[in-house]
């Protein structure tokens, strides 16, 4: 079903080509606005920005390694109710997968939306990004995509991809209406545009781009990258399990936590409108703390740190897409992503589920069958 076309790249300027392409998308009668990673005028930062004025597309930068938030939540805000106006949203693969989870939870809608995915070059952690970016953003982005696409990673100085990106086996979007292909493509001449849905196909037709086949080496370079990432991921799983396989180790792993709940705020699939940990349930009487302290001799304040993390694992690990924004948001450098991905891999496998894979697959805890998991039940 997939249909592919190409857009030309002039003077090695990938961003210029992408901006032209987005301009053509926004020019379409059907598209009211585009949501894109956009360089803020007041600082060298890239944020998701909703644009209706084609002139503003000059600051679009989908290839920057800035990844300050998972855009799925933003797209959910734009789509949760019908507007009758279509938005084209450009997202990284992990943002698309998180968005798919939100659609299943009825917190977002696929209607009135055109998803434009990109082959993901990865991102830097916020801290590394600020340290690294400098004043010339054109230069910074070009250095970054050249380094990643050459496969050598040279030129990034003393920073490397965020831990989540280093172990991400989904660098290529699936389920996007249109997907921009970079890996295994001769990007000095052209970028690949692939329609992955019927809507995307119709749209590609309307854009009137020159048809093209995917380059023969593309699948091979994707397979190689995915294999490397999967191997790195499995090593990370082993390291993390080893670091957390007892209560003693888990408490050491989480000891820096100050219960700020930033990881939960940053998480695109932490779906509760109001988290139980900020409700009255945890608004204990002052005397209660003193009684607990009397019973145990000492209680760490604030309390319920491990309880919070394990509960969050129980609530959202089956929907975890591994975007790493939890680690990015942690003020005390706890490797939250590693813990959550490791457990999520196990819980998703237990229900033969993969977060973000398919919008038609119901989340594991929203469905059940009469005969299943009988091994967990028993009177002895």
């Amino acid at each position, binding site marked *: 079903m997939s249909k592919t076309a190409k857009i030309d790249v002039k003077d090695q300027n990938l961003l210029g080509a992408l901006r032209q392409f987005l301009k053509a998308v926004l020019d379409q009668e059907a598209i009211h606005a585009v949501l894109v990673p956009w360089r803020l005028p007041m600082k060298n930062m890239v944020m998701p920005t909703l644009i209706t004025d084609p002139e503003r597309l000059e600051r679009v930068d989908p290839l920057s390694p800035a990844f300050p938030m998972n855009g799925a939540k933003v797209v959910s805000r734009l789509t949760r109710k019908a507007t009758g106006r279509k938005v084209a949203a450009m997202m990284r693969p992990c943002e698309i997968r998180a968005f798919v989870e939100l659609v299943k939870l009825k917190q977002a809608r696929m209607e009135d939306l055109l998803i434009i995915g990109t082959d993901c070059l990865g991102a830097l952690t916020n801290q590394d990004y600020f340290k690294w970016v400098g004043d010339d953003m054109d230069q910074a982005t070009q250095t970054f995509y050249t380094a990643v696409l050459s496969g050598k990673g040279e030129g990034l100085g003393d920073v490397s991809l965020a831990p989540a990106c280093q172990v991400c086996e989904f660098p290529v979007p699936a389920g996007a209406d249109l997907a921009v292909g970079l890996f295994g493509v001769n990007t000095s001449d052209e970028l690949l545009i692939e329609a992955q849905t019927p809507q995307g196909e119709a749209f590609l037709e309307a854009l009137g781009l020159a048809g093209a086949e995917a380059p023969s080496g593309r699948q091979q370079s994707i397979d190689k990258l995915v294999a490397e990432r999967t191997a790195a991921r499995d090593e990370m799983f082993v390291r993390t399990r080893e670091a957390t396989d007892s209560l003693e180790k888990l408490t050491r792993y989480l000891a820096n936590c100050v219960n700020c709940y930033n990881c939960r705020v940053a998480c695109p699939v932490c779906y509760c409108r109001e988290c139980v940990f900020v409700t009255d349930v945890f608004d204990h009487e002052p005397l209660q703390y003193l009684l607990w302290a009397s019973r145990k001799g000492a209680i760490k304040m604030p309390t319920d740190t491990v309880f919070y993390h394990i509960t969050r694992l*129980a609530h959202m690990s089956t929907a975890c897409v591994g975007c790493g924004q939890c680690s990015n948001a942690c003020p005390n450098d706890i490797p939250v992503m590693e813990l959550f991905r490791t457990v999520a891999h196990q819980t998703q496998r237990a229900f033969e589920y993969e977060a973000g894979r398919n919008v038609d697959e119901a989340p594991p805890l929203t469905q059940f069958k009469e005969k299943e*998991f009988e091994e967990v039940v028993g009177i002895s």
Partner: protein
Amino acid sequence: MTDFEPTIVAFFCNWCTYTAADLAGTSRLSYPANVKIIRVMCSGMVDPQYVIKALLEGADGVIIGGCNPGDCHYINGNYKARRRVKLLKEILPSFGFEAERLRLAWIAASDGILLAEMMRDFTEQIKVLGPSAPKLRMVI
């Protein structure tokens, strides 16, 4: 550890397992006093966090009791409980909690004898496992 008396927290469905516990009582059947019963309206309302909290606060074992398949007063609450127990049995052992510390059982309202037997059996099983980690060290 022969003199170890475990603390066991039980979440029993109002319509079946709790009624069975009542029946055991009125039938003068005895079961270990280690089991602290919390009556809930349905096993399907036991959020994973109740189990996690109980274990972290020092419960050595947790039992969830629900209706037999097809008998749920709310049609399918027990099936939801089963999925949640499946989930917890994936997560808790990652952190060193033995999967056997959590048990899900279907016990009908008329099964007073079975209930008393199960409580004895589970208490014995937990005695063999010994105290759970949160009893022995600080939990943050």
